[in-house]
């Protein structure tokens, strides 16, 4: 999205621009794998992505198959994570659950980004009444404790995957929007923007060409946090019976069932919770590593500059 936006408006020197953005991406990844947190986050998430895509190939059983084993079989070689109250294979269900969690995480982060970016840009760039209106909107959404807002939205629109994604996206619009707004304002105060304006650059040009590339990195970092919270919230909604419904293999649903059979089959809730925790741990680690990798102050130190064409 970032690359596309910059590229399409870049005009005659588009290839160079594209190369620098790609260069930035390559450099960021290179920096990421230099930190332990980055390696951990990336590899776990890649692993989970592979698991999600290849779940039908990897799963030893059909996740919906009732009576794949006996009821409440404890973990064994045939059922590595045991079986649940209907004799379904918990391991297979966990693998398929990764699909739901990753889909919710990716879709919510994109949704929040797509809603927040235009609002934040408008508030920060246009300012005035528009800024006041948008900022109050953010304040209003922000005034709701996030889980309550999510519960209310899901209750209104009905329990479904799409509505969970929408709820999570709306919850995080203020966070991403405020960040966009403040980043835009900081960039607008920079001399290079004045210089561009003096050289006759239009508003669209300044926003897409100069401001966006500087606004996107911090947003990207925040989006990993949104993804982590989306995984958590999906599990939470499903746990409360407001999200994904059984028999879907959502980790939250599995935790909720596990809670009811804690004394007989503790592995039910154990593995589902572990899966949620590992995914969030990886997303947080990636976010932290990304923050360091994208820190503009560090670019300045290496002489690349924020637009960083030289190493491209």
């Amino acid at each position, binding site marked *: 999205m970032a690359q596309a936006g910059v590229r399409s408006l870049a005009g005659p020197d588009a290839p160079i621009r594209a190369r620098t953005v790609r260069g930035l991406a390559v450099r960021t990844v290179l920096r990421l794998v230099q930190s332990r947190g980055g390696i951990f986050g990336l590899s776990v998430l890649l692993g989970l992505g592979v698991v999600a895509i290849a779940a039908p190939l990897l799963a030893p059983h059909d996740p919906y198959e009732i009576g794949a084993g006996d009821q409440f079989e404890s973990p064994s070689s045939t059922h590595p994570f045991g079986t649940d109250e209907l004799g379904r294979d918990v391991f297979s269900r966990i693998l398929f659950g990764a699909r739901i969690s990753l889909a919710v995480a990716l879709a919510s982060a994109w949704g929040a980004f797509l809603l927040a970016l235009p609002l934040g840009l408008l508030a920060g760039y246009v300012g005035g009444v528009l800024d006041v209106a948008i900022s*109050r*909107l953010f*304040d*209003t959404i922000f*005034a*709701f*404790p*996030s*889980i*309550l807002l999510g*519960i*209310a*939205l899901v*209750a*209104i*629109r*009905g329990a479904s995957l799409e509505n969970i994604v929408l709820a999570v996206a709306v919850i995080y619009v203020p966070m991403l929007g405020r960040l966009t707004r403040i980043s835009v304002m900081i960039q607008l105060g920079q001399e290079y923007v004045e210089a561009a304006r003096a050289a006759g650059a239009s508003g669209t040009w300044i926003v897409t060409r100069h401001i966006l590339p500087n606004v996107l990195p911090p947003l990207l970092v925040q989006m990993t946090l949104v993804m*982590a919270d989306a995984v*958590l919230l999906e*599990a*939470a909604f499903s*746990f*409360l019976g*407001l999200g994904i419904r059984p028999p879907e293999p959502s980790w939250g649903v599995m*935790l909720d069932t*596990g*809670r009811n059979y*804690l*004394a007989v089959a*503790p592995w039910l*809730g*154990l593995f*589902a*919770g*572990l899966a*949620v*925790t*590992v995914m*969030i*741990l990886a997303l*947080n*680690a990636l976010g932290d590593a990304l923050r360091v990798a994208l820190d503009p102050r560090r670019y300045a130190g290496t002489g690349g500059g924020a637009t960083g064409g030289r190493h491209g």
Partner: protein
Amino acid sequence: MIAFVVGRLMQALPVVFLTSVAIFVFIRLIPGDPAVSIAGLNATPDQVEALRHRYGLDRPLVAQYLTWVGRVGQGDFGTAYASQQPISHLIMARLPATLELAIGAMVVTLLIGGPLGIISAIRPYHRLSRAVTLFNAVAIATPTFWLGILLVLLFGVRLKWLPPSGYAGITDEPGASLKFLVLPSFTLGIVGSAILIRFLAASISEALGADFVRTAHAKGLPERRVIGSHVLKNALPPVITVMAVQFGYLLGGAVITEAIFGWPGLGRLMLDAIKAREYLVIQGTMLVFVTTFIVVNVLADGCYAVVNPRLRETARR
């Protein structure tokens, strides 16, 4: 200080107004006609119509909103459809449990997070600090409901040290009440302490790098005094704000923990109301949550201004 808090409260008023509108509109969007659900399946259309009229559901939305806000201003949240109880009573009945849990969780947060946060900032390369870093990463990633389940499994089901769930009023049976309080408090408090550690450590290490610390060292102050009276004084204000926000969340956001431990707090009240389509109860509890959250934030800013006079100046301008 008072002028500052009043000023901030005035700034918060439009947000309170907007949230009340948002809550009101939200609730109207919930599918299903409340009059139909109150009247029951066997009701005739006339009965439904009569109920609709009785609760004012047939009036224009703006009129309904104004009536609601006007009454809420006088402390009247209306009556619950099913139980016919005043909603203010329902809320007041749940308030002690919610407050008890919020305070319990805060105590755990401060007891774990305070010392560990200070240690990991002052001695970043100590073995304990490395352990704290790991604890933090895991605690932040652990969903509260999973942690709750694990604690119940370990201390409630296996070891049988503590009751797995339930509640007793703190004034009726203080001993039993505290026993019930331990597991939910730790469930919320462990995650809270991870947040506290993160902010406290960041804030302290920033203060440690300041010039006044070097000066304090140079004039020969013992380490203990430097940390105690110079570093902490400067490091605490932002942490207070974060903890106030945390407390605000605890007052409203502990829905999941309440569900796990059968805790009869405000979160449960709202969750049950959503499931039963009790419009007025949802509206009332949400308004209470949001207003509390906003007021707690303003008070936190007030505390901040007490310890950091510079902020008072900027606020006045």
